[in-house]
């Protein structure tokens, strides 16, 4: 019997936390990034949204992210994660035999997406996207099957994205918003995903500072639970509202480095821990 837990929810929310939201690429241009993010949690949000402790588990993801414009209006996007999931060694003060630490390393679930520009005006742009979540990860890793790097289900996310630029006191800013629906299979509940991001380039455009607010809300229409958990119960009915920030440093016009930090503000069935991220990006 396979059991999948909080990890997968983290993979989802971190995906939206640090997922780079770019404008639609021009034909022949692209954005490619080698990134990492890390989370270690010893508590989680329960199904009631309250906090409970858990054995410390960590997730470390190294990923390749790329987006390439095949026309001026169509951009292909790919995300390939390599995931390490681990649990700390457990020691008991009573002298009971402990439990050794454990780790699983494997590919995670790959995302493939296509973004299509619907409208473009001088100050704003409207686009839509379809993301396919490929179940390429390990959904039964580790000694007890709970060290998953994927959820084992094929999901599809349809999003509408809008972006605009504006000025405050002669300083340029941008803002983006997205609304999506994640159609999940294998008994998982479907989800609504909302995101907002704003940022600005400063110091002679050498730095980009941005903040993100993302949320996942579940429809709670899945059938998975502890009653029939051939699959996940904690990757199911996940909810989280996450606030994060990122600093990008433009080393050259083509190369940049980034550092991100995010914290969950609330959630259900998901770890509560801050996440760190870093990456090196190349703009074609």
């Amino acid at each position, binding site marked *: 019997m396979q*059991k999948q*837990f909080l990890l997968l929810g983290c993979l989802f929310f971190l995906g939206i936390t640090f997922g780079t939201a770019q404008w639609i690429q021009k034909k022949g241009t692209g954005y490619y990034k080698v990134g*990492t993010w*890390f989370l*270690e949690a*010893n508590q*989680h949000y*329960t*199904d*009631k949204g*309250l*906090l*409970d*402790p*858990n*054995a*410390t588990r*960590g997730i*470390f993801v190294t990923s390749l992210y790329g987006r390439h414009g095949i026309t001026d209006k169509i951009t292909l996007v790919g995300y390939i994660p390599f995931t*390490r999931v*681990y*649990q*700390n*060694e*457990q*020691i*008991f*003060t*009573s*002298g*009971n*035999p402990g*439990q050794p*630490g*454990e*780790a699983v390393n494997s590919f995670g679930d790959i995302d493939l997406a296509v973004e299509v520009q619907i409208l473009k005006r001088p100050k704003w742009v409207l686009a839509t996207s379809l993301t396919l979540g490929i179940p390429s990860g390990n959904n039964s890793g580790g000694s*007890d099957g*709970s060290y998953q790097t994927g959820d084992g289900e094929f999901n599809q996310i349809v999003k509408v994205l809008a972006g605009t630029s504006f000025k405050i006191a002669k300083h340029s800013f941008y803002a983006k918003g997205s609304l999506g629906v994640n159609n999940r299979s294998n008994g998982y509940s479907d989800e609504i995903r909302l995101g907002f991001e704003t940022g600005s380039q400063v110091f002679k455009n050498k730095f980009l500072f941005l903040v993100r607010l993302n949320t996942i809300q579940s429809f709670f229409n899945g059938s998975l*639970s*502890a*009653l029939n*958990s051939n699959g996940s*119960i*904690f990757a199911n*009915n996940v909810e989280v509202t996450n606030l994060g920030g990122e600093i990008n*440093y433009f*080393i050259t016009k083509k190369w940049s*480095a980034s*550092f991100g930090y995010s914290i969950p503000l609330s959630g259900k*069935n998901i770890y509560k821990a801050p996440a*760190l991220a*870093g990456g*090196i990006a190349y703009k074609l």
Partner: protein
Amino acid sequence: MYKKTLLFFSFLLYLSCIGTDVTDDYVDPTLRITSPQIISIKVGQKFQFTAKYFDTSGTQIENPNLIWTVSPPDALTIDDSGFATATSDGVATIQVSVVTALGSTISAETSFPVREVVTVITETATMTVDSGTTTTSDINTSTIDSGTTTSTLTDASTTTTTVSDTSSTTTDTDSTPTVDDDVVVTSPQSYQGTIRTTSSYELTGSYEYGLNDAGQLVLDIGDDYVASTAIPRLFVYLSNNPNSPSGAYEIAEVTVFSGAHSYVLPSSIDISDYKYILYWCKPFIVKVGDSTIF
């Protein structure tokens, strides 16, 4: 810049190293007299006392070096194995002690009357413990002549302990006094109590723990039982450590999340072997709920 970036990535890699969690599940070592509680013993009769020793993890230690003593010394004689012979009229106190691994000595004791005639106590006691600590009890005692048959000694005694503190449970105990060769003893037949959550997950319900008509030890969970279906891999244990399942008997993984159900326990388990019912989430390695049986 490249060196700083490399350092940053190295730092993130370092963070993903496996660390250590320390769970505080220490319990004080305990010594428990497990032989039936003597209500009365007749002069000249013999009785085998037994006791079990549990270490700081709640694990039973096999063949501990138990030391049996009696007070006053002329009331009973007792040997190193706990085998006692009543010798004179009075109130006797049996004490058993053991030296723990830490060098300290712990003990347990039981007191009872030694009589020239057999005394039968039909007891109904109710003790309520709350912030005001109120205790009431009614005890009826009758005395019968030595040699009276045991057929009339079938009254049941009931002890009810109710603790209104949120960290405690309600436990009802049913026991039946019996007479064997002029030794009146009482052995618990069953315990009733309430499972409580110790987490943010819903887990509650009444239970009865005892022997069924077939003589099997059974944990019967009541109709009012409810457990959250969001708890991953929830297991139920019998334990002598309320903080961890180490040294405990794993009954089963929980597959029923509402309503009445039963767990039939193996014959190797005695009703007095375990003090706690423990609900434990294996992947989180945390307690979800518990109940104190006695």
